[in-house]
């Protein structure tokens, strides 16, 4: 690829102008509350308190898996019948629960009141509650509010809502600093910072920061780059603070990482020779690691159900670096300003769909019979049982996949289900919980 004009290949057009298939109907997605599960690991002095129902608590415990047993820094204040009767009461109740929580966890410096569908529908004013509680518990604890409700947010948008809520409270600065936005696993964050340091770019700030004391300042000379594509509101909030966005392809794979770094390097006047010197070795490593998996993936077709908004950059990576053919790339939301550079690189061909009508999308998937289907855990096993090969999408959010050193792992996540399918030789037969014909009531041993 050409670094200076990463827009188009000579052979194929990109997808920037492809008409989007917009669908509404049943959506098979997580709500934004799930973002808490990785955000609380990243922000080490923060507690996330969901104000919601038993359903919210049940969702978090189902999604967090065994993490729920490790005394995590999140919980749910479950609304009860009496909270629904009168709203004044709900505020007093919330104050009491927060005071108890903070007394039990004195290490907490940031408390997030996270809105849910029930709290939004009864219009419980959590923004005012956050202000009141900030005053009450100042200066030790800062209380924020955002909504992770399903009616407003889909899966990774929870992180966007959380970070966007923090932006207006960040300190002001006039310094020209790079702000890298999006929660990354610590190991990946360190790799990113190390590459930027070698390029002579600094100081570099992160949002979110690991601890509240390290929160970045922001101002008219701040330049920010996103490492996650789902940060639309945070993007807008930073621009409102006067910061400048560096549009770039997302750092997935060798090519994506290089494009991302080059966009930053250009903004900070890094000479091309220095850039090549710093990136040559890790680029070669990444390309070699990806090649090991590309042989499995090459020529295979892939179908993305909407989940995390990572779908477009990932489809670009699979198409260009692994030789796959995307058939449909579904995304819950499409921010053209943010994913534009990836759309430019994604070879023309796939249906780009936004939103979902899951039954119709399943019909399309069934008709297309893709070699690999990327979907959520509610769909994966049912599709496997029908003979499709699936890659469950949530792992792509929970696993380190960004930047050079993870490029091979990222390709590996997609090649593993295909390699496994080739390894297993025993055919799947009708199990006792199948709904196929010939099922005896209750099953027999």
């Amino acid at each position, binding site marked *: 690829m050409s670094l200076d004009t990463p827009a188009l290949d000579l052979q194929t057009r990109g997808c920037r102008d492809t008409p989007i298939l917009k669908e509404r109907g049943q959506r098979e997605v997580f709500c934004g509350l799930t973002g808490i599960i990785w955000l609380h690991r990243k922000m080490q002095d923060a507690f996330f308190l969901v104000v919601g129902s038993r359903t919210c608590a049940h969702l978090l415990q189902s999604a967090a898996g065994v993490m729920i047993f490790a005394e995590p820094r999140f919980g749910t204040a479950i609304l009860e019948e009496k909270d629904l009767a009168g709203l004044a009461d709900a505020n007093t109740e919330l104050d009491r629960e927060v005071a108890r929580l903070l007394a039990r966890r004195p290490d907490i410096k940031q408390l997030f009141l996270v809105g849910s569908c029930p709290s939004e529908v009864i219009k419980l004013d959590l923004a005012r509650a956050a202000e009141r509680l900030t005053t009450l518990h100042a200066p030790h604890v800062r209380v924020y509010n955002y909504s992770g409700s399903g009616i407003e947010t*889909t899966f990774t948008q929870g992180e966007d809502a959380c970070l966007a809520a923090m932006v207006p409270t960040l300190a002001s600065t006039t310094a020209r600093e790079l702000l890298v936005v999006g929660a990354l696993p610590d190991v990946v964050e360190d790799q990113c910072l190390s590459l930027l340091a070698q390029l002579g770019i600094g100081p570099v700030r992160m949002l979110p920061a690991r601890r509240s004391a390290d929160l970045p300042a922001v101002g008219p000379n701040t330049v920010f780059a996103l490492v996650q594509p789902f940060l639309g509101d945070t993007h807008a909030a930073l621009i409102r603070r006067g910061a400048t966005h560096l549009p770039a392809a997302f750092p997935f794979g060798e090519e994506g990482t290089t494009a991302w770094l080059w966009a930053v390097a250009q903004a900070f006047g890094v000479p091309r020779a220095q850039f090549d010197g710093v990136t040559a070795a890790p680029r070669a490593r990444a390309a070699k690691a990806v090649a090991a998996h590309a042989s499995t993936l090459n020529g295979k077709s892939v179908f993305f159900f909407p989940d995390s908004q990572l779908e477009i950059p990932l489809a670009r990576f699979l198409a260009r670096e692994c030789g796959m053919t995307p058939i449909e790339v579904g995304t819950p939301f499409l921010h053209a300003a943010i994913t534009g550079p990836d759309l430019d690189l994604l070879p023309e061909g796939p249906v780009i769909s936004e939103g979902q009508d899951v039954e119709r999308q399943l019909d399309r998937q069934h008709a297309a019979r893709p070699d690999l289907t990327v979907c959520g855990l509610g769909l994966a096993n049912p599709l496997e049982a029908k003979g499709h090969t699936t890659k469950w999408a949530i792992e792509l959010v929970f696993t380190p996949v960004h930047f050079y050193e993870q490029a091979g792992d990222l390709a590996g996540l997609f090649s593993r289900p295909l390699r496994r399918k080739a390894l297993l030789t025993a055919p799947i037969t009708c199990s006792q919980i199948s709904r196929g014909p010939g099922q005896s009531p209750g099953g027999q041993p």
Partner: protein
Amino acid sequence: MKLTLWTYEGPPHVGAMRVATGMTGLHYVLHAPQGDTYADLLFTMIERRNHRPPVTYTTFQARDLGADTANLFKDAARDAYARFKPQAMIVGASCTAELIQDDPGGLAEAIGLPCPVIPLDLPSYQRKENFGADETFHQICRALVKPMPRTETITCNILGATALGFRHRDDVAEITKLLGLMGIAVNVAAPMGASPADIARMGQAHFNVLLYPETGESAARWLERSCNQPYTKTVPIGVGATRDFLHEVAALTGLSPQVDESGLRLPWWSASVDSTYLTGKRVFIFGDATHVIAAARIAATEIGFEVVGMGCYNREFARPLRAAAKAYGLEALITDDYLEVEDAIAAAAPELILGTQQERHIGKRLGIPCAVISSPVHVQDFPARYSPQMGFEGANVIFDSWIHPLVMGLEEHLLTMFREDFEFHSDAGPSHHGAKADLREIGDVAPVADLAGGALPPGFAPPRDIYEQMTTAEAAQAGPVWQAAAERELKKIPFFVRGKAKRNTESYAAEKGVAEISVETLYEAKAHYAR
């Protein structure tokens, strides 16, 4: 408001999903916001189902709020009927839809679907998952079951098994086999495995077998009233309960309760001398009331444990559990707060916990062995192999799964005999083979200063020693002081009983007003507490 981290039960609409997913030919239209579809993965992942749960969600979003959501519901119901052509539908609201007050029952009726549509009223802010399942099955029976002439041969229905039920799949199979041995055929097993058409012919059975009161009792009572079908009150978990159950069925049918017990091994396994060391082992039992009551009977009368704690998380069954606990001289613990359960377990200091997946983790934290006897459970407790809890094979399964976490008898004796052995000492971990072993110099005695600190390998050591914690707290209040020699002697006691020995010695010393614990005090206390 109540701050919650872990919940034993989901919301009631998840209970309704358990009924719908267990059945065939039934579809559930759930008025719910985007995101509530998370519940699908409980069925596709934990129970590893190979189909999507038969649930259509309206998945409304913020922009739909207002008059739109009612139309959204109607469209979803119409589309679901057109696509899935179910024999019957159930309709209801999740917690958020309950607040926006569309009426799913009325809306579904208004569009006039060509199949029975059963409205569900599940109060999300008061009730929980088990209620949701019980009420849903009850409403389905009310809508579809009619009194019918009895079958010519003696048949029964099996009530209560649902999707995501702890060992429901194999329990139904085991009880079907057992009834077959008595000459009774199963008319319908429901909800799991039944279609609405099957439900409609439930009236022709002679009686009902209620396997799980939590999810089938309302339906059983209603069938008793409307179809004049008696139902069984004994849940056949354990040898004694299974025999009682067979006698109960015999009384209902006039058939002989004598069946082939040649596959039953628990009584002999339990009687064999290798099991003698199980006598009086202290066991704490927590879960849903039905499984706890059954487990206590097995523990006390079939294995010979001492039951030192009993409790359940489902308040609906508090009364029978309290009565059962009283028979063991215990006060039942009725709570859905796992921190209370953890405190009660720490206070009872049992040698074995029987509980849910939460108690498994409490057990890990406290360093106490645990076996799982009740929902909620994780994926490993939906096993591929045949493993019922009920009937005679269930008793075999229970014996194996409860005993395995305990240190085996011979091993226990060897550990006692060779305590402080150079390669078999308590810090060496579960194996003293190979490079992992932390071998001690022969004759080396740990210095007193090290006594509190010797860490076990990760994954084996209890991350938090409750006994240590208690004694530090007590020490702060000027409790008895351990002499160095006594502390060294204490260290020679195998680690898995050392906590108890330490605690007993200290309370003995406090009782006797002894300020310093010597080796003699240790052994006096041992004699005092000997059983």
